[in-house]
């Protein structure tokens, strides 16, 4: 895999992934989602609440609602990959605890994974430290998940 020249023989799926990633990161920059104080303002329901993120989420969710209907009707993507099936509505302890932990971290620093990527090059040492800590968390997450399931299923 390492011998494969990234731009020389890029597959269509890899070019699309690069374009989608670039558009995603640019959208996060333009929308203000990489501004940690703005994100914390959105979560500050008992202070100077900033509703901007509702516009960001609305702008992304409304078109995607129709895209999902199209994708699920077609069943496969243009490159022939099956559209991911609807996940079972399973709410196990790891899901609930993980969602709450993520929210706590999001509120604490004002960054979630997408903006952490998009602002990496311009976020200074603080952004780099957050990124390193986030990746470290992802490294230990399977261990935490195993520990949680051993505590909750017996």
């Amino acid at each position: 895999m390492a011998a494969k020249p990234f731009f020389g023989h890029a597959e269509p799926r890899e070019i699309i992934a690069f374009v989608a990633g670039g558009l995603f990161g640019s959208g996060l920059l333009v929308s203000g989602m990489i501004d940690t104080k703005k994100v914390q303002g959105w979560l500050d329901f008992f202070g100077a609440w900033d509703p901007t993120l509702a516009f960001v989420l609305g702008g992304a969710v409304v078109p995607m609602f129709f895209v999902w209907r199209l994708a699920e009707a077609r069943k496969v993507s243009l490159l022939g990959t099956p559209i991911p099936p609807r996940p079972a509505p399973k709410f196990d302890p790891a899901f609930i605890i993980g969602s709450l932990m993520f929210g706590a971290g999001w509120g604490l620093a004002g960054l979630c994974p997408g903006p952490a990527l998009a602002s990496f090059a311009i976020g200074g040492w603080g952004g780099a430290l957050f990124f390193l800590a986030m990746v470290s968390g992802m490294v230990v997450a399977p261990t935490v998940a195993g520990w949680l399931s051993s505590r909750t299923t017996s």
Partner: protein
Amino acid sequence: MMPVDWIWGLVGGLMIGGAAALYLLVNGRIMGASGILGGLVDGTGRSSMVERLAFLFGAMAVPPLLVPFYTLVDTRITSNPAIIIAAGLLVGIGTRLANGCTSGHGVCGISRLAPRGLGSTALYLLGGAVTVYIFRHILGAI
């Protein structure tokens, strides 16, 4: 916060939705930042490694090119390293336990009306709001 911020929020949101639509309709993948990165970190996404790397490279390398055309160049992140490390660990562990973040559960899950996407979003908004309330209004730390 100004009404012009809402317009930029909407424009950026449409770009994020466009990216999610492209990734789903062409590649057949759900655009979730924590899943794309996390699958590389823990090795579960090895079979789609180059696709993931291409997405991450785009997300990290393209936004800085826009900075000369855009006024915001500062994330205004806290300078307290303990808060940054704690927050990063919580986001990394939490998104992997929950199997999604603001893009996967938020944008893609809500728009699919997926119970897990809606449920996770309600929970992380709750976690974030309580955290901001405690650390800003009670402790005055952020």
